[in-house]
């Protein structure tokens, strides 16, 4: 089981949880398993062609999968997968 950390914007799609445990031996497996358990996340994570959306960063432990093997990056039991979309919040109005 890998631990997947869910960013605030995706939490409504996973019943409000901030961490989800899913099976999978690669990043692709893990994210697809997540999308299967929580179908609303699918569209947010993957493009129509099945690629990871460009605006979603994924890290295995502390390293970006873009500099590893993308969706093929291996995930071992006990690893933490972090899903991280950009956030913009800062002041209350456009500066």
């Amino acid at each position, binding site marked *: 089981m890998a631990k997947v950390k869910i960013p*605030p914007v995706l939490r409504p799609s996973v019943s409000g949880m901030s961490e989800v445990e899913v099976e999978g031996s690669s990043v692709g497996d893990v994210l697809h398993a997540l999308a299967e358990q929580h179908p609303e996340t699918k569209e947010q994570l993957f493009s129509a062609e099945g690629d990871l959306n460009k*605006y979603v960063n994924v890290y295995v432990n502390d390293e*970006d999968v873009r500099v590893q093997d993308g969706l093929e990056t291996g995930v071992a039991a006990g690893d933490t997968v972090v899903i991280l*979309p950009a*956030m913009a*919040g800062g*002041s*209350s109005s456009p*500066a």
Partner: protein
Amino acid sequence: MRTGSQHIKEIRSQVKGIDPSAVHDLLSRNGASGDDFVIVDVRELGEWEQGHLPGALHVPRSYLESRIEGNIPERDKRLILYCATDNRSSLAANTLEKDLGYENVEVMTGGFTLWKDRGYPFESPTALTPEQKERYSRHLLIPEVGSVGQQKLLDSKVLLIGAGGLGSPSALYLAAAGVGTLGIVDDDEVDLTNLQRQVIHDTRRIGQPKVESAKETIAALNPDVEVVPYKTRLDADNVMELIADYDVIVDGADNFPTRYLLNDAAVRQRKPVVHASILGFDGQLTVFKPYDGPCYRCLYPSPPPADLAPSCGANGVLGVLPGIMGLLQANETIKLVIEQGEPLVGRLLLFEALSTQFTELRVRRDPDCPVCGDGVDLENTEFEDYEALCAAAG
């Protein structure tokens, strides 16, 4: 019974001396003390402020035992000590060798007096006023800041993008720390809904421009700080001019077009940006130092679609969260200014307030980055239409 001068004479005969000319040669070859050797000034603060060897480390003899390790943990490092002549430095060298186990200690014979007589160069730090010495006394007591670091803060210019949730705490603490010039960019007015977290403003200031309200608060806190208010939005026409005068930019903007625009301008001018963003209970923090580390586009090549990028206005934010993240920004800013510690370059810090958890992720420069990537020529590139870029996202 021996006299004091006999004792000093005996110690002096035991420590290894080095002539000022040899120290001068070393400095000329190496620029300043560094990896190979460290020059340590053991005189009192008042003497140090009158002038000292270039790049010397100041550890007064009265604090030697308590402070030397924090600055120089390596016992085999070559240390060259000096005082006004060579009495105090010989006694200090004796302590370092006999009591603290330093193996490679020398004393500059004739001290600073002979150094100056020979006409060798020295640095005179601009002395702080008596009031500044008192105001910043807790900084002056930390070796990593000290009078040199405090002077760097007073000489520094920091630009804050936004005087809102993140900008309020960072502005307050940067002002208190004595950052000499604080530019603040914000086109908004103080609103009652702001006051749950934007602590630089107050209830009487509702309706007042935020930049003016911030300026008033800072003037009352620290008269050393010059606040430059810019009541405007950051846009492609003003960004290059706005950031040009500043050493560090603190990004507390609340929208993607501004963040991409600021990044692209800051990379062009090689200005470090201390970045934070917040939503709900979650915050992100990093330092973008152009070409030393990744830029905002290396981290986030594409903005998310609108439904994945809610604002604090729409989704809310815990009031203390921007306080925490804004102060972490101030911390990174001060480290950049005084050139101490490890700035958060190439590292993204995530903070979750509900679980009180910090997570650190690695961020790398993208060689294919459209802005800071290899071979990108920014000289002849116009800014993108960021509003359109973000509107088209997804």
